[in-house]
């Protein structure tokens, strides 16, 4: 017997487990994403701790520079600052297109939503591809010292998060092209958008601390 028939038979009473008690003032799905981002922020924090530790006790510090500061990365290695800078521009732009997609959805502009989503995914893929090419040409690998381990660890961790974000966005894009989502029901797109902006924020922090400063 179907659930509707059962309910009709019993005078419309609901059967089954009761609705869960919601003690938070924000939606449970949003809370779930926020807690997940919190754990990921702590994970990045641990990697940054390792990075700052390695940088402070960098064995290249014995090299005397004109400013008498430690050399980072140790000679003769160099970080590809320009390529990473281009990657940063790509990822920041993808945040703009993601925001555009959400705003379009909330205004009922489905074409804008789809375009924004597709552009965000393409730029995310471009970011990952550029990073893989950067890894191939960087000139050192993980066995070349602690700085290299920290470099690949931090950037690789971020790359993994970009991949997760792309999976979420692709799922959302498939649903969007199937006609899901509306200005009233946009959580399925908003949550991947929040995660994508978190990934972007993390990359800005990684890029500035690792490559620029």
């Amino acid at each position: 017997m179907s659930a509707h028939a059962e309910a009709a038979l019993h005078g419309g009473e609901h059967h089954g487990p009761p609705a869960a008690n919601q003690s938070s003032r924000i939606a449970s799905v949003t809370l779930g994403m926020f807690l997940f981002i919190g754990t990921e922020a702590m994970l990045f924090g641990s990697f940054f701790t390792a990075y700052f530790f390695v940088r402070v006790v960098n064995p290249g510090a014995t090299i005397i520079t004109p400013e008498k500061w430690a050399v980072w990365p140790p000679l003769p290695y160099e970080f590809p600052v320009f390529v990473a800078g281009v990657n940063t521009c790509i990822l920041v732009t993808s945040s703009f297109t993601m925001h555009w997609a959400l705003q379009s959805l909330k205004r009922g502009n489905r074409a804008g939503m789809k375009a924004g989503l597709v552009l965000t995914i393409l730029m995310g893929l471009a970011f990952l591809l550029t990073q893989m090419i950067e890894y191939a040409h960087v000139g050192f690998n993980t066995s070349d010292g602690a700085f290299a381990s920290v470099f690949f660890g931090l950037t690789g961790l971020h790359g993994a998060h970009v991949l997760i974000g792309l999976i979420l966005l692709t799922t959302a894009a498939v649903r969007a092209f199937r006609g899901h989502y509306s200005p009233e029901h946009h959580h399925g797109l908003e949550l991947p958008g929040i995660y994508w902006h978190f990934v972007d924020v993390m990359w800005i922090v990684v890029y500035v601390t690792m490559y620029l400063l």
Partner: protein
Amino acid sequence: MRNPFRDEAAAFRLVLLTIGYFALIVAAAAVSRWVGLAMFVVLTAFVVRRLMSAPTRPTSGAQRADVEDTPAEKPGVES
């Protein structure tokens, strides 16, 4: 402190603020390391002060579950 990831618009605003924050630090560091450090300290103090003084939203009542766990007391029964 309000959740910076409470919705997509807030998260996007955080991206822009992060860019501005680090852009100022990098620009200052390009002048001199000490200027960069000073800019970092000033900006971080500003952000912390802003977060500490941000008004908190009033908490709304929790949504009660559909099922009461505690059975109602029968009249005449001592607790």
